[in-house]
């Protein structure tokens, strides 16, 4: 067992995590006196335990040849409807499963179970509820799914544009759903989320005729934070624009199974 507290070298290449010049494995902690105290060099990533658990998940998903998508957004952007429509159109061509996180209720899981896909609901409702799904929670939730039978596992994360961006769960790709009833400047307000994602969905475009919403500006803001990221403008409700998003998912699964 590797020491879960040490920074694995493999984590150093992650974008902007820095510290690539340090070598915590090579030297014992240095001590030096500083104004009556002893300073012990530690140099450890605080989230190393989560990152190691995420790496374990990633190995498991690779062994089982399951493509895993981490779907994130603010509350009310239409993640669950998008997922319902996505499952309806990808199945049975692809065998799908879902892990859905909410602070409370099984409402989303009940809706998604109607697709016939295996669904595991994670509730974080103790004392107000945690704000993200951590890697160890995904590991436990995935143990309730027969991964041998699954091509695509979609994790619907807790509705939150802040915390889930910080927690690797072992996924192959991340997607963020933004809807046209939110501000065009959301990507600028939550840059980390839009940096860490591999694709963005701009949902509810069927409402554009009724709104003063500048969709090109929203897309430009996404690209200001993450140049060249694919943006799928769609309406999960009407089905308009769904196909490029579905093709993107199919491509990821193909790549994983190749």
């Amino acid at each position, binding site marked *: 067992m590797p020491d879960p*507290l040490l*920074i694995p070298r493999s984590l150093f290449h*992650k*974008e*902007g*995590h*820095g510290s690539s010049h340090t070598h915590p494995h090579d030297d014992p*902690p240095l*001590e030096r006196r500083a104004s*009556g*105290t*002893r*300073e*012990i*060099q*530690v*140099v*450890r*990533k*605080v*989230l190393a*335990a*989560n990152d190691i*658990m995420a790496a374990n998940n990633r190995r498991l998903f690779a062994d089982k040849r399951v493509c895993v998508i981490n779907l994130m957004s603010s509350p009310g952007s239409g993640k669950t409807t998008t997922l319902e429509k996505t499952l309806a159109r990808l199945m049975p061509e692809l065998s799908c499963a879902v892990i*859905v996180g909410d602070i409370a209720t*099984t409402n989303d899981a*009940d809706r998604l*179970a*109607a697709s*016939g896909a295996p*669904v*595991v*609901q*994670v*509730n974080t*409702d*103790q*004392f107000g509820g*945690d*704000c*993200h*799904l*951590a890697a*160890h*929670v995904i*590991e*436990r*939730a995935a143990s*309730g799914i027969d991964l041998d039978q699954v091509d695509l596992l979609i994790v619907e994360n807790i509705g939150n544009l*802040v915390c889930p961006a*910080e*927690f690797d769960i072992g996924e192959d790709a991340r997607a963020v759903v933004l809807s046209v009833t939110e501000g065009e400047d959301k*990507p600028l*307000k939550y840059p*980390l989320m839009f*940096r860490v994602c591999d694709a963005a969905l701009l949902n509810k475009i069927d409402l554009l005729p009724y709104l003063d919403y500048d969709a090109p500006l929203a897309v430009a803001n996404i690209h*200001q*934070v993450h*140049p*060249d990221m694919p943006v799928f403008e769609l309406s999960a409700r009407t089905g308009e624009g769904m196909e490029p998003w579905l093709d993107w998912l199919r491509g990821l699964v193909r790549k994983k199974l190749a």
Partner: protein
Amino acid sequence: MDHTAGRRQTRPAAVVRAAYRDSGVGTAPSVHRGPGRTDTRYAAMHEMGIAMQIVEIAVASVPAHLKGSPVERVNLQVGKLSAVVPDSLRFCFDVVAKGTPLEGADLNIEELPVTARCRACGHVWTIDGPAFTCPECARGDLELLSGRELDIRSIELRENRTPDA
């Protein structure tokens, strides 16, 4: 509630309660089924989980021959692009540190800027706002050099014993 009625191929969703009783370091995930148990370490903010990890790492970092020495300061580096609010983290740290060698310790947070290198032209710069395109060549293929850190750099121990040989 019978949500399976009248639907084809529908099964009730398994429910997993993700109770954050522990920080997941070296222990089984604290996920359980059924009614939640009361535990004062349940966390509503992810800063709480992060604070718990900090305390755990700091306690484990005290060398054996200095066990029992109180920790006076924890030096932390937090990148400005990390999803951590320093004030929330300090608050959570004070709560979590109670009853450990870190009780009353100062959490010293050094915020690090977001810096990037353009893969196209090699320009290196500090990103001040939410614009991730190169100011020199306007392209967007960049490597972030810093800004995502959430690292403990060191801990400082108060000397408990008289200086001797």
